[in-house]
């Protein structure tokens, strides 16, 4: 089988503190020119002053066979996104070489270049051209794109009047018809909307099935496991593991869970200090304890401390409930109708979310905070999570001392119906289980 992507000795260096790598002001540049000779005299020998290097990627080498679906995992800032940016030619590497065989498309740019004032029809052509399609190609696929997006009747309406759903469908429809030989997908950038993510994944499965090469960067371990046959783990810019997805993902999760005990605090505030920061996450039980093991029969509350620097009605704060197998569910403070949303004002506040009583299993669970600006960009979206243990004690059944499989162990209502021998029909009464007929 031929090689679709060949990466050899790839490195990307950022110079921190150097004006060349960051938008500076002209004054800085002029001062630098003026000061440089003096500095050179003072620090004879050491050439670069306070500039520090940061290698976002270091000596990364691996090949991807054509038709392979490969997952890239790693903590936030590990270098995953930098890798995708180099592969999609957005930024250039400092060292090394990548050889790509075939047309490259990426789903990290859905809706890029859409202009709100232009109509759906106009945006299809514009976006197609930005993604690298020719006019003839877009015209040929135009009807398919419109069908897929289900917006036919609004084709000549300016996109600014579209609902978010319509906008995303249209944007995705264009990207999906690019038909690249190599597809790069960054889940991190496909904001919020669960339905949309599902559609992305569905489309990826379709593409993967059609013999295309897919590189998938994600925090969703279940999705990585389902979709990818092989996984590469990156940490601090280097490839630290490469192999069958089940093995790599399991080992990764095990390490994330910090084998020697629960993680009760976030390593540092998450988010954007100019917009919104998540400063702490806690799980609190009925006695006000914040340390596990917690009891599944108690009311547990997840508390998220938020620091809002700039007000924005489109903020969403929430969390992913995780188990060792990956995501169980995601919840947002905006899940209910708008009049019930808890207010999120400027300054510090604590959002509280009550977990349903009696659904957790005897497991170690993780709470990974999430925050975004709805349908725009992520603020908090990574693997940083707090981990806690739960003792399952909400089932009174003498049978439920045994460990039950699954990420959750909810207590559900059961009943039975049918012809019962020797008893009246009023047998079903009380309890979650009906009394077994006497033999």
């Amino acid at each position, binding site marked *: 089988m031929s090689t679709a992507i060949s990466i050899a000795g790839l490195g990307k260096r*950022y110079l921190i503190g150097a004006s060349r790598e960051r*938008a500076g002001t002209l004054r800085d540049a002029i001062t630098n020119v003026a000061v440089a000779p003096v500095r050179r005299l003072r620090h004879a020998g050491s050439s670069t002053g306070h500039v520090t290097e940061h290698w976002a990627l270091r000596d990364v080498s691996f090949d991807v066979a054509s038709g392979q679906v490969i997952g890239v995992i790693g903590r936030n800032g590990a270098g995953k996104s930098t890798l995708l940016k180099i592969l999609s030619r957005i930024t250039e590497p400092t060292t090394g070489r990548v050889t*790509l065989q075939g047309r490259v498309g990426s789903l990290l740019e859905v809706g890029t*270049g859409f202009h709100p004032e232009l109509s759906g029809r106009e945006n299809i052509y*514009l976006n197609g051209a930005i993604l690298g399609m020719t006019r003839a190609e877009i015209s040929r696929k135009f009807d398919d794109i419109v069908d897929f997006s289900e917006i036919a009747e609004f084709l000549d309406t300016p996109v600014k009047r579209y609902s978010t759903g319509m906008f995303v469908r249209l944007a995705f429809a264009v990207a999906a018809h690019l038909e690249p030989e190599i597809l790069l997908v960054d889940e991190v950038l496909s904001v919020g909307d669960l339905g949309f993510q599902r559609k992305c994944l569905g489309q990826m499965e379709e593409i993967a099935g059609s013999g295309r090469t897919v590189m998938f960067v994600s925090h969703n371990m279940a999705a990585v496991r389902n979709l990818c046959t092989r996984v590469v783990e990156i940490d601090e810019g280097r490839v630290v593991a490469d192999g069958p997805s089940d093995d790599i993902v399991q080992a990764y999760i095990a390490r994330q869970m910090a084998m020697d005990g629960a993680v009760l605090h976030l390593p540092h505030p998450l988010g954007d200090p100019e917009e919104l920061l998540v400063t702490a996450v806690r799980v609190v039980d009925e006695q006000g304890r914040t340390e596990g093991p917690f009891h599944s029969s108690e009311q547990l509350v997840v508390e998220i401390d938020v620091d809002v620097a700039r007000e924005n009605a489109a903020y969403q704060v929430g969390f992913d409930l995780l188990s060792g197998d990956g995501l169980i569910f995601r919840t947002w403070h905006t899940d209910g109708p708008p009049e019930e949303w808890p207010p999120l004002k400027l300054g510090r506040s604590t959002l509280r979310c009550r977990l349903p009583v009696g659904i957790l299993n005897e497991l170690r669970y993780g709470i990974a905070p999430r925050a975004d600006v709805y349908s725009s960009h992520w603020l908090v979206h990574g693997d940083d999570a707090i981990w806690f243990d739960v003792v399952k004690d909400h089932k009174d059944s003498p049978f439920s001392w045994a460990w039950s499989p699954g990420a959750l162990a909810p207590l559900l209502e059961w009943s039975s119906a049918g012809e019962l021998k020797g008893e009246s029909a009023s047998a079903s009464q009380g309890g979650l289980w009906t009394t077994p007929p006497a033999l």
Partner: protein
Amino acid sequence: MTTDVQTAHAAEAPQLVIEPTKGWAKLGLRELWQYRELLYFLTWRNILVRYKQAVLGVLWAVLNPVITMVVFTLVFNRLLGVGSGSDGVPYAVFTFTGLLPWNLFAGSLSSAGSSVVGSANLITRVYFPRLVIPSSAVLGTLPDFLIAFVVLVVLMGVYQVAPTWHVVFLPFFVLLALTAALGASLWLSALYVLYRDVQYIIPFLVQLWFFLTPVFYPTSNIPSGWPSVVYNLNPMTGVVGGFRWALLGQQPPGSMFWLSVAMTLVVFIGGLYYFRRMERVFADVV
């Protein structure tokens, strides 16, 4: 970024090699040609958006130069006594002929100068030759130019000024104006990414540049000798002079004109290389 698109021997799929670029980048004009449709679409978008957003839309393209022309005629000609430099040419027509290429140039600088930073969301998400961005902004000023040109034709009719046969050279001067505009825009748009002060410098620069360009006064007011040489280092001096020669038959292009053309090429080619060189860090910096 070095990118060699070549057909691989065995596979039918194109092969793409991504490597760090060393030294000065190639201009990559072949790749730019491959992306000509994107240039077309972005230009078309810029034009469409501008006219859709403004209530008066196309009318602005008429009002802007006409009002400026009226004000100049009143202030400079009537009040301060500035002439057109030749007898048969009314001042209104004279200054409008200068405004035509000047507005193209000034409009380009203000829209193209901020174009790269304004396209940050494109640059950080998708690859295409970055030269497309300022180029499309410059080309987007053409409709305004064409509308103003129609106004000029009407104005010449009203003042009964007949164009000379030199008018056949006009397309060359339009091209020269576009080259000067793109050249300056390439410098400014790349500098703007690296230094955010450029946004304050652009309006100031346009204003200064305007006074150094013979829009409302004739070049005959400039002393000959060294002052004239320095004055003609301004690419727009040649462009405006060329327009007046082609349309009104004033001052045929001489050595001073070619000096100005040479400067235009220096600014343009220098701008191309500078932009290509800086382009590498755009996505990291913007």
